[in-house]
């Protein structure tokens, strides 16, 4: 059962990383236009280099 002392913190830690990533995405307005983002990748406009913002 010693393995539990490792596995439980690891699984919680991985989950926490996911949660932190989600909160970061939320804070940086990445959920403001889900429909547009779903469509944007279809256009090849900024395929070569990122959009200069």
């Amino acid at each position, binding site marked *: 059962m010693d393995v539990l002392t490792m596995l439980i913190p690891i699984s*919680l830690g991985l*989950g926490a990383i996911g949660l932190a990533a989600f909160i970061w995405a*939320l804070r940086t307005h990445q959920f*403001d236009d889900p429909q547009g983002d779903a*469509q*944007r990748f279809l*256009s090849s406009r900024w395929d070569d280099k990122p959009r200069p913002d």
Partner: protein
Amino acid sequence: MTDLSAGYAPRLSACPACEAAPLAQHVAARAETPAHDALILSLPTAHCALCITQVEDALTAHPGVRSARVNLTLRRVTVDAPGLGADDLIPVLARIGYEAHELDPGALAATTADRAGRDLLMRIGVSGFAMMNIMILSIAVWSGAEAATRDLFHWISAAIALPTVAFCGQPFFASAWTSVRARRLGMDVPISLALILASAISVFETAQSGHHAYFDAAVMLCFFLLIGRYLDHRTRAIARSAAAELTALEVPRATLLRDGVEQTVPVADLRPGDLIRVRPGGRIPADGEITEGASEIDRALLTGETLPVPAGPGMILSAGEVNLTGPLVIRVTAAGRDSSLARLTALVEAAESARGRYTSLAERAARGYSPAVHALAFASFAGWFWASGDLRLSVNIAAAVLIITCPCALGLAVPAVATSASGRLFRRGLLIKDGTALERLAEVDTVVFDKTGTLTMGQPQLVRADLPQDLQPVARALAEASSHPLARALAAGMADVEPAALQDVTERPGQGVEARWQGQRVRLGRADWLGAADDKDGAMLSSWLAIDGQRPFRLDFADRLRPGARECVARLRAEGRRVILLSGDRPAAVAHLADELGIGECYAGVSPTGKADLVGQLSDQGARVLMVGDGLNDTAALARAHVSISPASALDAARVASDMVLTGTNLLPVAEAVAVAERATRRIRENFAISFGYNVVAVPVALAGFATPLIAALAMSISSITVTLNALRLNR
């Protein structure tokens, strides 16, 4: 956060003016300060990846535009263009085939920084994270972890679940508290009770080293209910932003003349006795009497008449009318609360309270459900305690009953359907402003249409011109000199004719245009000015062209039918609904249009109060009326009807009074909306049946004391998923 039932019930405000006025005033006040760099335009017709690239490319190619970004979810484009106005950019988009309207960034600020929505999303994320981790531990327990391991897993679950429930359950606790204080049982009371009881029982059981802990159930409940809450919030936020968007379209300002100096002031600052100037093409900002100038007045939005009325000194004008041809100076007789506009608003208020509060399906379900759940849980506790005398067992069973009957699927049933239905209608160009509008729309059996501006575009179109070849260039050139709607229609109708060279072109306000052509006087204008005989009762509008000494030529115009109007009426009639045409216009014009669209019932020359009364009579006879209208004269009828729709071109008062707004020009989505609403309501009922079905199966198990956390988790997730999938079927 309000509770579920309160969230559905209210219209945006009991009084449309209260909703629109402060926002509009705020807009007017801000208009004094220099314009923003960022412009926001609404794009009702954008829908795909190609639209995004086309719009962004066209705008960025326009000189002066630094960047443009489309938000497809909200159908908006944000343009960074210092020094440019919406008037410069709207034609750019029109050229590539996109409708665009200006929006005020200030009025929209609240919706872009949607704090409440992000707050809910955050809670969903946290509860999702907690749910997954607790589930991993629970599965170990369900598959047979024993003694110390089980206790350890339960304690870790408790450490994750308790803070999660405390944080994520806040929206439910808050609204349950408000409804308890108001002595009502909303849907949130059993939810909060289940959350608290499940957590408390589980902590107690864990401390006693018991077998069953419901931490996973409590957190899962939070997760699913928060999703329902978020969907509901989003639907209402879109509705709110739609209302804000609409008020942002019109800025009420007036040009005040003080000691001969012109000054722009908000309409609210006007006082009786003030002199104001109204330019041709401008809307009259307050009731008043003309002191100087001659012009023609378009009353279409107030009365539904398509024919402009000549106006001269001494004539009384009402706010909302449009000045057409000549500049006017008006002495204000009533402004603000005393104006005819405000009186009409009062009429709307009265009509609205007459319509009463509609009880939504969700409210009706909650009203029956909550007491039943509480009674059931209490009965199971009392029954088991009486039978076994074991307090711990009885409380456990009561908690299991509460968890299993918790309206998890019920909380998702309505928001999931509403989101999917309003999303579908949004893509077709319909904004839903009211939470219960869809349900009310599904009950409609009678549809009342206004004529001018609703079934027609409110813009005349040249239909017949018996002009000799050599006079056509003259007509075109004369027409271009005026901003009168008929002249503009004539110019548009003869767009392929080369205009003739004219001298001394002068516009005679209220009469027409005259000029010299090859030494002769030519005139374009009203029949009486040219000495021609006009038939005032004809279905057509007409204008005349004359060369001195010759017989005048007649030019006929008709109001253009709104695209989709014919199909919309045909479809509604095919579905067996009664269609009525109601207009303030001349009988001949109304009958002509009714004939053309195949509408059997029509009423002409109806006053604004008459319209509201007629709609009221229909309701009294038991009809569920859908009113579609755009004018100020329709406002009271719109508010009185069971449900109402107005086009985006409508006056703001009309848009505020109606439940839905048509953002595109096509009328067909109206017929479609009725069909979608019927299907949506059917889905809601199905969803209620599904979640009730799950309860019928699971509750006896819980009552008998066989419910384990595993069964609770299965029942809850399966019913939530079924309900959501059923709602999504609407999107096909």
